[in-house]
């Protein structure tokens, strides 16, 4: 039975749980308040931490006086996080943490800490188009390298740039391994290894870092050949993650060398290293636990500075448990932001819609680090391109991965530009996409992506009534309320992270599954049980699942839509191995060979002869005293997962041209993701992504005050999310069955979040006849665009 194909996913007719609609197993705990999140954990003798935060966007700490705070009643420990001479780069950064017997005492003490600052100049304007920016001659940093890969800069151009500029990072073995895993060529790796290492710095005081221009094909000839050109400026601001459970942890020392943390994290198995390095203890001495997490969206991978200082202040408090959960304002100010992106774009096409050329000058900020360029042109790979990106370094606060990093921005800019081109050509934008659909095939396309997009566009058109309801731009009716439709397509990679799953079958028939993963609310628990149950022929409530602890077999962080691929394939391999061990034990009793057996409906039976069977319990009883243990890994034997998905989004909106209010009528997403493990939670993921997309299109913006450099709306009144009445009718269609199932499960966290912003923005343009170029599409922006003869103006352009 060494055949690797035994791990293959069961054929459609044999699946008992996979692909069905199954309610999430932790649903009852969540609806009844029984589910314990990190914020809910009460450890015996727990102290409460409060944090003194810097009110300035850019400053140097001159002095910190904690003496008054230390003497206050109830205060147990005070720890200075960033002392004199520390340079602070964003408002809200942590300076001092106080631990006291209750929260109000800790708050009182935090107010008694005196910090003096030397206030430095700050810069928070990422909206103005950078002008007269010199090309960056400094060393290439990791962001710059990743950005070049993402933008598919031709290999020789990349190598030239690495040779010329040198690099600011060490090309160590770990990095080389990672590059190899990502199929980077040996030539490129050699260039990186040979590159001169240069310290960062020496850069000018300017907040702008211009990346070298990227060109492909012959853009000049393309625009000469073009019969129609369309130009526009588009973009979206910095938005925040706004996890409802804020970031934070409870840290306690079991002795001077052993730390126990309850942490709100997307990375249960991986985060101990960060604690270990910061606290100078072995990683194996850091115990991390989390039962439930109240949202992450890409912002909760690290221990973070606050995780480490919670451990530090616990140490000062004699190891007592200390809880530090961020309050709402710092959660929005410092705990995660999606980079902004703006671009001036020119597109050239023939009269029949054939796209020839793309030119873009883009800019955006990811906070003090600048941030990389979004992928453009997005999905539709126009043959001739010239691109220039400027990273804007600001004191807005640090950026973090936000579902599908850089894709929503690239999609908005590209799909807006193509929609404007379609309007100029007097063409239906769906027809423009279909005309150029071959440009959507990725390099080394194995799965016929262009055809998938075509199918998805057709299905979405039917579901939203595109043919009946679409009209040329601006012909949205004669009354003040105009209706319009918009479209966008998107993509993401996926594949599976490294994962280990341990399954034990006990002689009395019970089954334990252990894995150091986490369930972000996407249904990971349920998916593991579905795969194990389908493989072992057991109902999901007959197995015990343990996750959320780094003492269990290691599994990857939940990011990049790699979780379902990782956890489903490690579980499948473990369950197949465990099942086959059981078959070997009972085959004799059933007078059959092990490979003739199957596990179905709580019994082990001979394939084709269901009468020759034995119950699961009886089968397990034959194990004697020795349980079966199997460890499944990803990557591992067999070809269970793949990468690369697409989706089409269509939006139907009504816009009141007198008030500027945009109302969502309906939105449709058609999405492929390979083999669906649980249709119910898969659809929920897509619905959720659409709603997040509506919020980022219509409401969300991290508004910065240029005078003080602080965030003006660090609360949920003015940092507005979408409510139940704001989202309109939502329709999700999953592409399943032949052509999709064979690919194995592919993650869904990212892809459906990408397209909504572009689809809605295009629907608004279709309704009112002019482009509202910048997100969020607030009433004042709609009215301004309508009032402006050229369809909106931009301060810097």
């Amino acid at each position, binding site marked *: 039975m060494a055949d690797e194909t035994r791990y293959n996913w069961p054929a459609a007719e044999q699946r008992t749980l996979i692909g069905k609609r199954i*309610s*999430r197993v*932790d*649903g*009852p*705990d*969540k*609806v*009844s*308040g*029984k*589910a*314990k*999140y990190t*914020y*809910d954990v*009460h450890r015996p003798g727990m102290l409460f931490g409060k944090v003194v935060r810097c009110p300035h966007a850019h400053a140097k700490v001159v002095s910190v006086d904690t003496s008054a705070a230390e003497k206050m009643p109830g205060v147990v420990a005070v720890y200075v996080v960033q002392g004199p001479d520390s340079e602070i780069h964003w408002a809200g950064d942590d300076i001092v943490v106080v631990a006291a017997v*209750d*929260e*109000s005492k800790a*708050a009182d003490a935090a107010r008694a800490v005196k910090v003096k600052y030397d206030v430095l100049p700050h810069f928070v304007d990422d909206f103005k188009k950078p002008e007269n920016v010199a090309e960056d001659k400094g060393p290439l940093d990791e962001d710059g390298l990743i950005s070049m890969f993402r933008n598919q800069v031709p290999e020789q151009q990349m190598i030239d740039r690495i040779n010329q500029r040198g690099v600011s990072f060490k090309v160590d073995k770990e990095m080389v391994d990672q590059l190899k895993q990502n199929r980077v060529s040996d030539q490129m790796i050699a260039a990186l290894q040979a590159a001169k290492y240069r310290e960062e710095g020496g850069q000018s005081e300017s907040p702008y870092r211009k990346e070298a221009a990227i060109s492909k094909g012959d853009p000049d000839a393309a625009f000469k050949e073009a019969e129609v050109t369309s130009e526009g400026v588009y973009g979206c601001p910095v938005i925040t993650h*706004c*996890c*409802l*459970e*804020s970031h934070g942890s409870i840290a306690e020392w079991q002795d001077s060398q052993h730390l126990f943390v309850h942490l709100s994290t997307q990375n249960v198995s991986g985060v101990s290293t960060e604690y270990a390095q910061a606290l100078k203890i072995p990683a194996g001495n850091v115990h991390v636990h989390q039962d*439930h*997490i*109240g*949202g992450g*969206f890409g912002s909760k991978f690290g221990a973070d500075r606050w995780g480490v200082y919670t451990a530090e202040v616990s140490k000062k408090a004699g190891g007592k448990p200390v809880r530090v959960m961020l*309050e*709402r*304002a710092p959660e929005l100010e410092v705990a995660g932001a999606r980079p902004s992106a703006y671009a001036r774009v020119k597109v050239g096409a023939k009269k029949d819609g054939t796209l020839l050329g793309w030119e873009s000058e883009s800019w955006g900020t990811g906070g003090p680090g600048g941030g990389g360029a979004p992928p453009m042109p997005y999905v539709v790979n126009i043959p001739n391109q010239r691109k220039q990106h400027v990273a804007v370094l600001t004191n807005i606060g640090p950026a973090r991965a936000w579902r599908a990093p850089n894709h929503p921005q690239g999609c908005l800019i590209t799909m807006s530009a193509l929609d404007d081109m379609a309007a100029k050509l007097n063409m239906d934008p769906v027809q423009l996409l279909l005309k150029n659909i071959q440009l959507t095939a990725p390099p080394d396309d194995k799965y016929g992506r262009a055809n998938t997009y075509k199918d998805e566009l057709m299905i979405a058109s039917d579901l939203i009534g595109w043919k009946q309801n679409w009209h040329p731009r601006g012909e949205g009716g004669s009354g003040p309320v105009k209706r319009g439709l918009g479209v966008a397509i998107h993509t993401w990679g996926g594949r599976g992270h490294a994962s280990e799953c341990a399954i034990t079958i006990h002689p009395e028939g019970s089954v334990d599954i252990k894995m150091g993963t986490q369930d*972000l*609310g*996407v249904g990971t628990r349920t998916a593991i049980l579905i795969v194990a149950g389908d493989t072992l022929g057991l109902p999901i409530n007959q197995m015990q699942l343990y996750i959320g602890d780094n003492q269990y077999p290691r599994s990857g962080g939940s990011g990049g839509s790699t979780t379902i691929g990782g956890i489903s394939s490690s579980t499948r391999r473990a369950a197949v191995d465990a099942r086959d061990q059981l078959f070997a034990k009972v085959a004799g009793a059933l007078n059959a060979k092990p490979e003739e057996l199957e596990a179905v409906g709580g019994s082990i039976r001979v394939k084709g002869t269901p009468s020759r069977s034995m119950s699961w319990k009886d089968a397990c009883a034959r194990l004697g005293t020795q349980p079966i243990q199997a460890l499944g890994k990803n990557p591992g034997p067999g070809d269970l997962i793949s990468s690369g998905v697409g989706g089409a989004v269509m939006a139907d909106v009504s816009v009141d041209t007198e008030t500027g*209010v945009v109302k969502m009528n309906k939105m449709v997403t058609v999405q492929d993701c390979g083999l669906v493990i649980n249709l*119910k*939670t898969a*659809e*929920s*993921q897509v*619905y*959720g*992504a*659409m*709603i*997040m997309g509506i919020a980022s299109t219509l409401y969300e913006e991290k508004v910065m005050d240029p005078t003080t450099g602080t965030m003006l709306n660090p*609360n*949920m*009144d003015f940092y507005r*999310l*979408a*409510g*139940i*009445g704001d*989202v309109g009718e*939502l329709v999700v269609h999953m592409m399943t069955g032949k052509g999709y199932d064979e690919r194995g499960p592919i993650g869904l966290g990212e892809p459906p979040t990408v397209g909504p912003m572009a689809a809605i923005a295009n629907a608004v343009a279709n309704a009112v006849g002019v482009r509202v170029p910048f997100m969020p599409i607030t009433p004042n922006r709609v009215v301004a665009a309508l009032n402006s003869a050229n369809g909106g103006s931009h301060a810097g352009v």
Partner: protein
Amino acid sequence: MDDRPENKEPDKQKESSAKTSTGVSRRDFLKISGVTAAVPLVNQASALAVADEARELGPGKVPVTLNVNGKKLNAQMEPRVTLLDALRDQFELTGAKRVCDRGTCGACTVLMDGKAVYSCSVLAIDAQGQAITTVEGLGEPGKLHPIQQAFVDNDAQQCGFCTPGFVMATKAMLDQHPHPTPEQVKQLLGGNFCRCGTYAGMRAAVAQAAKNTKGA
């Protein structure tokens, strides 16, 4: 665009007793002073008035008795402690969540004498003598309330952090409007926010619960 639900209004009489002459409740005052100390939203006199009024109850811990889910719960706490923090930190009833902590997001919603309130915006001492129902009091795994069951069946939750608040807001809504129109659902659940985006499931859950709780 204000879609604060009507049933979120705390009982009028209680509201007035908790307010100063400026119309700012003590809880609001605490919040305001904590968030933006430099902004003189209340004048000195009213701030003093709050202190005077509170003197008999503080500033140290005072005994507080709450009637939660049919049980009398006693604890010593400072008068400034909110109902939400009392439930969570004193009695380990952590179903109600602390998210915005200023009466916007609804994650802390509980029922007080049958009406939905933001427990982050009610002082524990003011909640004495009223019947408080938290999500734990509605049902538990194995014995879920039809509303909770409907949330499970229709996958009206992802991370689940907003879910207890939505369940309680739904309870208050269906108690008043057993057959809510889509417009009523929009208004009466408009005082809660979900970040994962579970509104499609919630609308289906409300429809199922309205059917199954009929006359109950």
